């Protein structure tokens, strides 16, 4: 009876199949004085599911087409030098692994987005432990899915936006994990366009020319535990829905037009547990609705939160606002957002009933920030006694700032 059971048969066959593939999968050594000294040629000779071990050395090759499932693994970080002639790896097959290569000199082009590694319409790929330098675009995923970009190091030397590319770019891709990468010195560190269900975690993106992370028209994505530091303009999340942003650090995005995070036309997102530290603007919000801001720390920013344009039904709860020049800047007299149970370092109220919640509401919008919104030149009066005085009087009896924009339950102690 058991032998005739179809499932049973299959389970028996499985190790057999694996065994045969292991037997038949061949390992190719590539090195200067090996039989095969070119990656490109070796790929063309290899069978699907074979492994290429690229030994230490320098390989001057470009436009390497990987069109069958292969593992291409570097031993001792061999250098693949594209000599600035064009794209270097192009993956068009599913089940490709690229591991441990040092790729340099991607050709810069004004008509083609040359990348160090381009993955086109492929599934189940793994790109890991790569080091990319002297690049134009780094890793470019195009209409691909269910892959993993893990632990790569991408170091660009971008100077101008027009002749530099992005570190990791995802275009019409989905179900991809981008983990533990380090991207620096590119145009946008990580760029997503029309890409859904992407997980971006534990990456470091710093010193990029424009954005550390850039979302466009991408929904249902999650990014957690990343660090974005000292990027030209911070992180931009635009025209996207259902994004979860958790436990990230946005630091030192400091400059006349820089912010930790820019939200533009974002709906139904969750922003929680993030740290915004020493940014000119912590979060710049334009036309974004139904967002939950919970448990974030805003420390030492110029503006912690700057709201431009219509933003409705957002909830700010349990955040710490510590030593920002302006906590909230607001450009309209209407307010539909809720501030509740946050800690404000400039709160001066008292707590008579000792329940940990201040008895007097806190008004986070300074008159000065309202004036600056209206006439930007007035910022030259920053930290003058006159502004302090009128801020104080506005706080006591609001005339210009929205009357209901207040935290009725300010915390007395920093939320730890």
């Amino acid at each position, binding site marked *: 009876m058991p032998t005739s059971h179809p499932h049973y048969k299959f389970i028996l066959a499985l190790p057999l199949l694996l065994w045969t593939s292991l037997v038949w999968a061949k390992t190719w050594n590539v090195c200067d004085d090996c039989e095969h000294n070119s990656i490109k040629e070796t790929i063309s000779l290899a069978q699907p599911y074979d492994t290429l071990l690229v030994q230490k050395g320098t390989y001057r090759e470009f436009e390497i087409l990987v069109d069958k499932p292969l593992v291409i693994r570097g031993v001792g970080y061999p250098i693949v030098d594209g000599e600035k002639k064009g794209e270097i790896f192009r993956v068009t097959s599913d089940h490709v692994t690229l591991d441990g290569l040092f790729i340099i000199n991607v050709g810069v082009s004004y008509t083609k987005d040359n990348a160090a590694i381009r993955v086109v319409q492929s599934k189940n790929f793994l790109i890991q432990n790569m080091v990319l330098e002297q690049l134009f675009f780094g890793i470019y995923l195009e209409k691909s899915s269910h892959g993993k970009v893990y632990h790569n190091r991408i170091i660009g030397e971008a100077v101008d936006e027009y002749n530099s590319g992005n570190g990791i770019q995802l275009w019409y891709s989905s179900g991809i994990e981008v983990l533990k990468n380090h991207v620096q010195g590119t145009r946008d560190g990580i760029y997503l366009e029309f890409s859904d269900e992407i997980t971006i975690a534990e990456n470091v993106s710093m010193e990029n020319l424009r954005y550390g992370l850039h979302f466009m028209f991408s929904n249902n994505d999650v990014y957690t535990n990343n660090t974005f530091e000292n990027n030209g303009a911070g992180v931009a999340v635009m025209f996207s829905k259902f994004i979860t942003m958790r436990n990230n650090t946005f630091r030192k995005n*400091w*400059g*006349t*037009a*820089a912010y930790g995070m820019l939200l533009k036309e974002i709906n139904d997102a969750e922003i929680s547990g993030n740290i915004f530290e020493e940014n*000119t603007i912590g979060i710049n919000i334009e036309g974004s609705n139904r967002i939950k801001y919970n448990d974030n720390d805003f420390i030492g920013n*110029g*503006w912690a939160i700057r709201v431009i344009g219509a933003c409705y039904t957002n909830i700010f709860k349990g955040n710490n606002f510590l030593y920002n*020049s302006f906590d909230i800047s607001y450009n309209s007299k209407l307010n539909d957002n809720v501030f509740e149970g946050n800690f404000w370092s400039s709160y001066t109220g008292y707590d008579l009933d000792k329940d940990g919640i201040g008895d007097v509401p806190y008004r986070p919008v300074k008159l000065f920030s309202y*004036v600056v919104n*209206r*006439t*930007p*030149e*007035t*910022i*030259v*009066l*920053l*930290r*003058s*006694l*006159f*502004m302090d*005085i009128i801020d104080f009087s506005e706080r006591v009896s609001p005339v210009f700032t929205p009357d209901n924009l207040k935290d009725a339950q300010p915390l007395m102690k920093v939320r730890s």
Partner: protein
Amino acid sequence: MLKILKYSFYDLIRSRWSYVYFLFYLALGFVLLFLNNDVSKAVITLMNVIIVLIPLIGTIFGVMYYYNSREFTELLLAQPIKRSSIFLGQYFGVAGSLTLSLVLGLGIPFVLYGLLRSNAIFDFSLLLVTGAFLTFIFVGLSFVIAISNENKIKGFGYAVLLWLFLAVVYDGLFLMSLIVFEEYPLDTFSLVATILNPIDLSRILILLKLDISALLGYTGAIFKQFFGTNLGFLISLAILLLWTILPLLGLRYKAGKKDF
């Protein structure tokens, strides 16, 4: 003049008020550093205090000293000393001792907390230099006011009004004109308006040296372009110097004509 300076200076550094002033800065320095242990942040907080307090203290001290030492001044006037030397000597005595209180009061805690090894040392010295300038400017202005007003109460009143005008009202008028003329390009106007008031000028000079300047946005960029160059920096120092010298010329003129 040096002798008068010496005596006024000694007289002042032994007075209770100099100690209070010195101890105030000493306490301020220690408290700021103790609270956040970060030299560059302490410099920012200090700026707020300095911009407001130094002109006020300078003004009040100057007027007070002038009126308090009026009889002594008369004693000196009968001595074989040039008139202008007497007043300039007293002026430098007051401004010098106040500056010394400031520099020592703030300097000691900062040096103890490792300023010399921190790269905030330049910001900090700029803070002290502008502080010194503000002291000299406002002591000078208060001397001119005091010498022009025999009536103590009036003199005090005018001096405080002057402080109020430069520290508060000026900025109010400045803000109003910025708002009223918001449709016009205002960069040059705000640059000029800032330079003309020594308090605003000092504030912007310090702000631009601190990295807080990024908050100033586009306008700040223009300011930075101006003050960031050597020429701009020299111009602003020259203007502070001019603000220091003008009251002195006024003082000399008034002193030469006044009857005692």
